[in-house]
């Protein structure tokens, strides 16, 4: 039931792009994306809803493939501030008031 995130870790140089995936074995109603810096709380980035609606961050984009039950987070022209751990949280039919979280993807952006 826990979504699977890939890759587990990414190292980028400033300006490079990255894609982080979140896959589920169950039908999804929504996918949340959050970024957490070391020692801090998770911060909301994006929500993707069944049906295609998106809510979130201006500089980060994401997709939601309902057929594959997968969401992808696209980080383009990465900045040093993008470093952190990215988590996806998923909501399912019959379980839609709470999120089940992936284990996270660690992203390091170097100068």
């Amino acid at each position, binding site marked *: 039931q826990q979504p699977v995130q890939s890759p587990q870790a990414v190292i980028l140089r400033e300006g490079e792009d990255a894609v982080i995936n979140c896959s589920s074995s169950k039908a999804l109603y929504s996918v949340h994306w959050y970024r957490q810096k070391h020692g801090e709380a998770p911060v909301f980035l994006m*929500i993707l809803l069944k049906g295609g609606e998106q*809510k979130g961050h201006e500089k980060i984009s994401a997709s939601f493939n309902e057929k594959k039950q997968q969401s992808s987070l696209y980080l383009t022209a990465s900045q040093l501030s993008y470093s952190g751990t990215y988590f996806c*949280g998923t909501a399912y039919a019959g379980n839609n008031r709470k999120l089940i979280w992936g284990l996270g993807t660690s992203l390091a952006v170097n100068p």
Partner: protein
Amino acid sequence: NAGVTQTPKFRVLKTGQSMTLLCAQDMNHEYMYWYRQDPGMGLRLIHYSVGEGTTAKGEVPDGYNVSRLKKQNFLLGLESAAPSQTSVYFCASSYAASYSNQPQHFGDGTRLSIL
């Protein structure tokens, strides 16, 4: 703009002691959540509440109790602390939402060590 406030921020307990963690939000959110975060384990839901006076179990509820007597507060209690409960605890809140279509707002966390 306080948002979600957790107290205390740090605490060290001895095995068998009890304590209560307090979460307060000033955004008039209906839903509130308690998570624990351990290295490599992501966020795991302990208990949650969808409104004043209501609580429900999450993924890892054993050893914890909660209460939501007021809409703005959500308390997490450890009756008899165990070393396995050493963790970082996060509280979060959100507006009521069908299919979780509202973001969760997190507090800064409570770092709890059980010796």
